[in-house]
């Protein structure tokens, strides 16, 4: 936290208006899962076989200068030089979040060295049957949990990350928080799903009103045992307690195509350098304030968490709100009612496995 705080303060004092916080470094698009909702891996085989070299990864990290590097994908553990990439980033004192489905995590752990700079961010979308159904493969949850437990036992930093789509059951999400905290993880990361243009399924994307209701139900009346590896102000944003504009340059994305314009989620083109990305992207065309339909439902962390972090470390008022948020349980009787009420909209099938057929019919009706 201190590293990020001093980084933000230095940037502010230097008058820098646009600076990165997290580099989204996608070393490859290949994946060992075939999730129906994914908008990231639909490429021809020759593209899926390509990958960034360690040198390209280090050059991108050094060029943009973000203190944190997230390694999503694809599945980074499929990259034959992922250990070299991680070690090189750690040597550069980057806080690395290796995002993995954990199918290979337990087997690969001996190749990595525990470090305060390295965190395994394991994809878990919910409780066992919910996660398995979401990633379209039975047995995945148990494998991932075995990987998490082994990583924790070996002294690695571990978080979980979940994406919630329409129909997510808030009560189940809260039970899931109990489960993952019991596993010994450092914190939980959450995000509402984003309406990727390229996702094969285009019917399960929540609008902002529904996102706020869902996250208010999930994140209010918190248990003291729950820890979130996210800015408390960003969580308040998801709960509808704050408004932020998007900071798309806060989490720039680099992959085999170059620097993705304008952000990790939208693919409107590529720049050859981070400098070119910053200087030649028309930023006014993006974010919720722009009215751009492609940004209309986005409340995703890559755009809005930088806004929250910058507020949190950019003023005493923001810092105090962050401290207060860290220790608040967010008592909210209205949220309890939301939790206990039947959903006001037809549940999607995502986490209603036994009722999948019925739910689908209701969704179509």
């Amino acid at each position, binding site marked *: 936290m201190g590293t990020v705080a001093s980084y933000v303060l230095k940037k502010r004092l230097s008058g820098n208006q646009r600076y990165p916080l997290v580099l989204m470094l996608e070393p490859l698009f*290949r*994946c*060992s*899962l*075939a*999730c*129906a*909702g994914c908008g990231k*891996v*639909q*490429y*021809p*085989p*020759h*593209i*899926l*076989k*390509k990958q960034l070299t360690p040198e390209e990864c280090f050059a991108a990290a050094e060029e943009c200068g973000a203190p944190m590097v997230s390694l999503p994908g694809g599945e980074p553990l499929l990259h034959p030089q992922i250990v070299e990439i991680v070690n090189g980033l750690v040597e550069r004192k980057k806080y690395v979040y290796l995002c993995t489905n954990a199918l290979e995590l337990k087997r690969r752990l001996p190749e990595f060295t525990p470090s305060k700079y390295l965190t395994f961010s394991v994809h878990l979308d919910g409780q066992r049957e919910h996660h398995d*159904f979401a990633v*379209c*493969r*039975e*047995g995945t949850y148990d494998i991932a949990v075995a990987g998490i437990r082994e990583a924790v036992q070996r002294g690695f930093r571990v978080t979980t990350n979940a994406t919630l789509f*329409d129909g997510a059951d808030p009560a189940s999400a809260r039970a899931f928080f109990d489960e993952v905290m019991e596993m010994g993880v450092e914190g939980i990361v959450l995000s509402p799903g984003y*309406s990727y*243009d*390229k*996702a*094969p*399924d*285009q*019917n*399960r*994307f*929540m*609008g*902002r*009103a*529904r996102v706020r209701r869902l996250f208010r139900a999930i994140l209010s009346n918190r248990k003291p045992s729950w820890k979130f590896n996210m800015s408390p102000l960003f969580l308040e944003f998801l709960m509808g307690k704050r408004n932020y504009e998007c900071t798309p340059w806060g989490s720039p994305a680099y992959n*085999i*195509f*170059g620097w993705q314009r304008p952000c990790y989620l939208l693919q409107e*083109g*590529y720049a050859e350098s981070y400098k070119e990305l910053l200087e030649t992207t028309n930023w006014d*065309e*993006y974010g*919720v*304030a*722009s*009215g*751009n*339909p*492609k940004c*209309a*439902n986005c409340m995703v962390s890559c755009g809005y968490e930088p806004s929250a972090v910058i507020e949190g470390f950019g003023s005493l008022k923001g810092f105090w709100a962050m401290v207060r948020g860290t220790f608040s349980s967010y008592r909210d009787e209205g949220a309890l009612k939301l939790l206990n009420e039947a959903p006001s*909209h037809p549940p999607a*099938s995502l986490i209603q496995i036994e009722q*999948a*057929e019925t739910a*689908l019919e209701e969704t179509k009706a």
Partner: protein
Amino acid sequence: MTAEVMKYTREQVEALELVPGAQHENLEGWIPTLADENDLRQALEKAFDYRGDVTLTLKSGEKIEAFIFNRHTGATLAESYVQYFTPAAPEKRKLSYAEIARLEFSGKDRAAGKHWEDWVKAYNEKKAAGETNIALVPDTLE
């Protein structure tokens, strides 16, 4: 974003319950008619969005199988270009719009047909048949 794209007001955005998803065109196999400069620009814009390979035929007669991942549109065709990877070459390549005579959406659309509903249907059928370890598997890389 082009000026003609409908914009939401802030109030509309904040009140949205569900977001309409993108409408995907079925482009696989399509050979656009390139009668004029505008046709070419529009077709290459679709090729940039397409999640499959295309075949570019140059005015020289050369054919290139390519995955187009970027485009730059300038005032003239000569100033506009696509960037692409081919299955055979490791490096990024660049090609001016002015060199392109024909375009075919020749490769499989990798974003087509993998709907959530298909997974739900397949899951329920397999479950009813008593199968275990039900899964979707990634496409092969060959």
